[in-house]
């Protein structure tokens, strides 16, 4: 569906893209993750033809995106930040957006009601978009993008600031659209969402470092992850243990990353006891995409 | 004080970085002055004139010469019928038509009143008023000449000589340059201050400032002081151009002018802050600024003399700060008068400032809603 070859775009210090190659097949859900300023937004904008690349090319259904005026309604794009009309109400925005894609009123109405209902926005239908909170605005943008249902959906951080429950509902909708044949390309800062993509492309410093399915990524992860529940308040003590590559907060526990080749569990447990660190629970766990992310982004200057 | 300084410094940094606005602040006085000074002439000369002379006599020629010599009429076309005169005026080729009847010369000699018809295209009132006035005047003078020569008196009984003071040559630029200074200050102060504050509201930085201990008046002072400086820079540029390009003589004291200007600046700032209180977006602020700006141009005496205005309009003009400032700046620059003649105007501006600033400060709350 989308073929990206040797794509480059130079900017100032952030958001540049270097020689990216990526192929997206029909009916794929592909997620782009990476540190802030890695170039995710720039890449997505080039896919939509909003930024002209310096080198290389993007082909969407065999055509350059800025040459596909006729097929424009086959490509839907939702920008990262709110870009609808603050002085129109929620439903006026949806109607306007839908009619740009020449949908009839009834279709717009039906689709919108369904999505607004699922994301609990239906009660705010007649509110001016300006008076919505950040997360609600995001839901509105999402609704607009989903109402039009083009063949390819490009979504830039679609769930920015959206609450966890609505995010789950939103993903159900994405999956359903995907079943109906839509191809979806999105970026996300949420690792649990990355897990739901069929393929994840990890971007860093303008380059794609790794592309694979989440399962394969976890499989290929070359370290062992230990989960520790403890009363300590700071991960520094853990990082000082020899053999520990990284240690960080993860939900209500710590993740300790160690090399694969040793019998780490005993070793770490002994080291913790030695340092009088109370251990409620210590076990080896399967790495999550977030662990993969943290290790890939290790060199990130944050 | 520390807080005011902080806002002040921040504003200066931002203005310095905003090259576009900074450029406009300097270009605006230049462009406006050159436009108004060169292009706009309130006095109309060289009106194209067509003649249908049926008399073809020395007398008709003599009168025609007087028309030409006045400089107001360019007699360039002569035709042979009424129809042609009408056609010329209809088509816009001529603004004025002069028709001498066949018996013109005989009537002059016989001493009976000799009629001359003057047609004026009144669709442009500026031109027609001037043409009518000058034509009447020429007619009067000519008649007088003939009368006096017939009566064989040495001179006419009255000799009224009008001496235009302050601007003897009637140079438009002299009149306009000081006024443009006033217009510039209105524009910059109202527009820039209101936009400056509304921009912070739009961007969300105002919300951040609301949770700080800053007091409304501190914020206002810090935000507006830099614009006062800009206002003075604009006036200076405008006056310099006026003196160097248009040779406007500045008769009064510059120091006095700059001091009295402060009162006008505060009044305009007050208006700007008031606008920023009402407007929620920069778009609205801009429109409101125009809402103030247009009447300022039309009713303050900037372009049209206020004396001729209907009573109601005249009183509305009294509610515009620029009206008073024009008196001040024209007075000082052209007439060389001083503060003692302008007390009334200064007090009016002071009242405006106090009223606008009080309303604004009372209305500005450190709350979103």
């Amino acid at each position, binding site marked *: 569906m989308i073929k990206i070859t040797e794509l480059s775009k130079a900017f*100032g*210090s*952030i958001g540049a893209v270097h020689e990216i190659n990526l192929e997206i097949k029909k009916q794929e859900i592909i997620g782009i993750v*990476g540190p*802030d*300023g890695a170039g995710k937004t720039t890449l997505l904008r080039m896919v939509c033809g909003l930024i002209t690349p310096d080198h290389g090319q993007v082909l969407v259904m065999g055509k350059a995106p800025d040459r596909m005026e006729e097929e424009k309604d086959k490509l839907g794009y939702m920008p990262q930040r709110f870009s609808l009309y603050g002085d129109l109400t929620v439903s006026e925005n949806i109607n306007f957006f839908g009619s740009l894609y020449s949908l009839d009123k009834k279709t717009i109405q039906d689709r919108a009601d369904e999505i607004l209902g699922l994301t*609990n*926005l239906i009660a705010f239908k007649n509110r001016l978009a300006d008076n*919505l*909170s*950040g*997360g*609600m605005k995001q839901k509105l943008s999402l609704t607009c993008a989903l109402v039009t249902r083009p063949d390819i959906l490009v979504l830039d*951080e679609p769930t*920015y*600031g959206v*609450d*966890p*429950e609505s995010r*789950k509902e939103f993903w*159900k909708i994405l*999956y359903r659209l995907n*079943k109906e044949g839509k191809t979806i390309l999105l970026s996300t*800062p949420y*690792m*649990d969402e990355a*897990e*739901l993509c069929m393929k994840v492309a990890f971007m860093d410093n303008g380059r794609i470092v790794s592309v694979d399915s989440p399962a394969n990524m976890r499989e290929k992860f070359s370290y062992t992850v230990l989960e520790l529940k403890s009363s300590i*308040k*700071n991960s520094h003590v853990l990082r000082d243990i020899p053999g520990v590559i990284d240690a960080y*907060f*993860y*939900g*209500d526990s710590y993740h300790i990353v160690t090399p694969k080749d040793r019998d780490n569990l005993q070793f770490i447990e002994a080291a913790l006891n030695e340092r009088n660190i109370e251990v409620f629970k210590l076990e080896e766990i399967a790495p999550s995409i977030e662990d993969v*992310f943290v290790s890939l*982004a290790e060199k990130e200057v*944050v | 004080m520390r*807080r005011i*300084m*902080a*806002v002040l*410094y*921040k504003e200066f*940094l931002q203005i310095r*970085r*905003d090259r576009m606005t900074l450029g406009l602040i300097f270009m605006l006085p230049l462009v406006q002055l050159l436009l108004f000074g060169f292009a706009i002439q309130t006095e109309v000369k060289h009106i194209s004139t067509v003649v249908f002379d049926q008399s073809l006599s020395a007398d008709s020629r003599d009168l025609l010469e007087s028309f030409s010599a006045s400089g107001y009429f360019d007699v360039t076309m002569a035709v042979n019928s009424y129809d042609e005169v009408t056609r010329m005026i209809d088509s816009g080729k001529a603004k004025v038509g002069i028709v001498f009847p066949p018996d013109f010369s005989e009537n002059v000699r016989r001493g009976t009143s000799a009629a001359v018809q003057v047609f004026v295209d009144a669709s442009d009132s500026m031109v027609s008023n001037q043409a009518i006035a000058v034509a009447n005047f020429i007619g009067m003078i000519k008649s007088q000449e003939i009368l006096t020569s017939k009566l064989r008196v040495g001179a006419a009984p009255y000799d009224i000589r009008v001496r235009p003071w302050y601007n003897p040559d009637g140079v438009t630029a002299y009149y306009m340059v000081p006024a443009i200074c006033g217009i510039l200050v209105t524009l910059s102060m109202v527009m820039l201050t209101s936009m400056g504050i509304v921009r912070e509201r739009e*961007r*969300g*930085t105002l*919300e*951040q400032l*609301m*949770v*700080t*201990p*800053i007091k409304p008046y501190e914020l206002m002072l810090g935000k507006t002081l830099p614009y006062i400086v800009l206002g003075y820079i604009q006036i200076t540029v405008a006056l310099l151009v006026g003196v160097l390009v248009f040779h406007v003589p500045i008769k009064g004291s510059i120091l006095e002018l700059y001091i009295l200007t402060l009162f006008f600046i505060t009044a305009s700032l007050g208006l700007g802050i008031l606008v920023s209180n009402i407007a929620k977006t920069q778009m609205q602020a801009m429109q409101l600024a125009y809402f103030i700006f247009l009447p300022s141009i039309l009713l303050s005496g900037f372009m049209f003399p206020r004396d001729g205005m209907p009573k109601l309009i005249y009183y509305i003009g009294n509610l515009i700060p620029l009206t008073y400032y024009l008196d001040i700046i024209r007075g000082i620059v052209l007439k060389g008068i001083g503060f003692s003649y302008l007390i009334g105007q200064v007090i009016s501006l002071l009242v405006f400032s106090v009223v606008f600033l009080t309303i604004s400060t009372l209305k500005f709350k*450190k*709350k*979103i*809603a």
Partner: protein
Amino acid sequence: MEDIIVTHDLTRSFGKFVAVSKLNLNIRCGEIYGFLGPNGAGKSTAIRMLCGILQPTSGTAQVLGYDLLNETEKIKRKIGYMSQKFSLYDDLSVEENLEFYAGVYEVPLKESKSRVAEMIEMANLTGREKEVVANLSGGWKQRLALGCAIISRPSLVFLDEPTSGVSPTSRRMFFNIIQGLANNGVTVMVTTHFMDEAERCNRIAFISGGRLMATDTPDNLKKNIIRGYLVELAVPDALEQVGRIEALPYVSECNIHGPLLHVLLEHESNAADLRTVTGVEPKMITPSLEDVFVTLAKS
């Protein structure tokens, strides 16, 4: 511990819409207090009221011992606030923004320089002091905004969704900074949609539809809110199975959780039934905060 914020029936409506309804909170000195809830639940409205920039419709509160209705300006001197919308000056540099807020909070001039340096260090902005903010990426901006909010060394800080839209590594760093503040005795009230951040709060308030649904420590919430028997199910195509499993009579809830499903059963014995239906062995788990969130948001 003494309470730094006490609210009594704090209410705010906009026209007919009640954004916050009779909110009663006690926030203790020195704790990280998480504010959770669906979008539009009234979190930002509540925080804006507590900061003194939004007038409550009714009810009252004491913040730092001051009366919220009459002593707002005194409160403003001692708090820091970071709004949801990024609210720094894009056209100023990192240093200039910090200097500006140091001035607005009347940090003595002598101290200003060292305070700015301290904030740059705290927020990990070293090396970017002269960079214009417009050129910074999300995580950097957010940390700078925090620096500006706490340059006056407030004892109470309100952070409204400070970590939305930044990468996982940036978020982690941000929360480490918050933790550091709390360790130094600053009380932090923070709203977030990230459950791992919520876990790091001392206590959490969950609000929905403007009402307080629950407030407690993360551990207690996980123990007390969910009634039933929670299992994890590692089915392939988890997202497509949600509807089918939710429809089972003994399933009270089924939600996607990363690549897994979390299924809330009515009885322990239902686990066997679930295995028969799905062919996958359910694994009994203790609820996570996300489970709690979803349950509370749906009730």
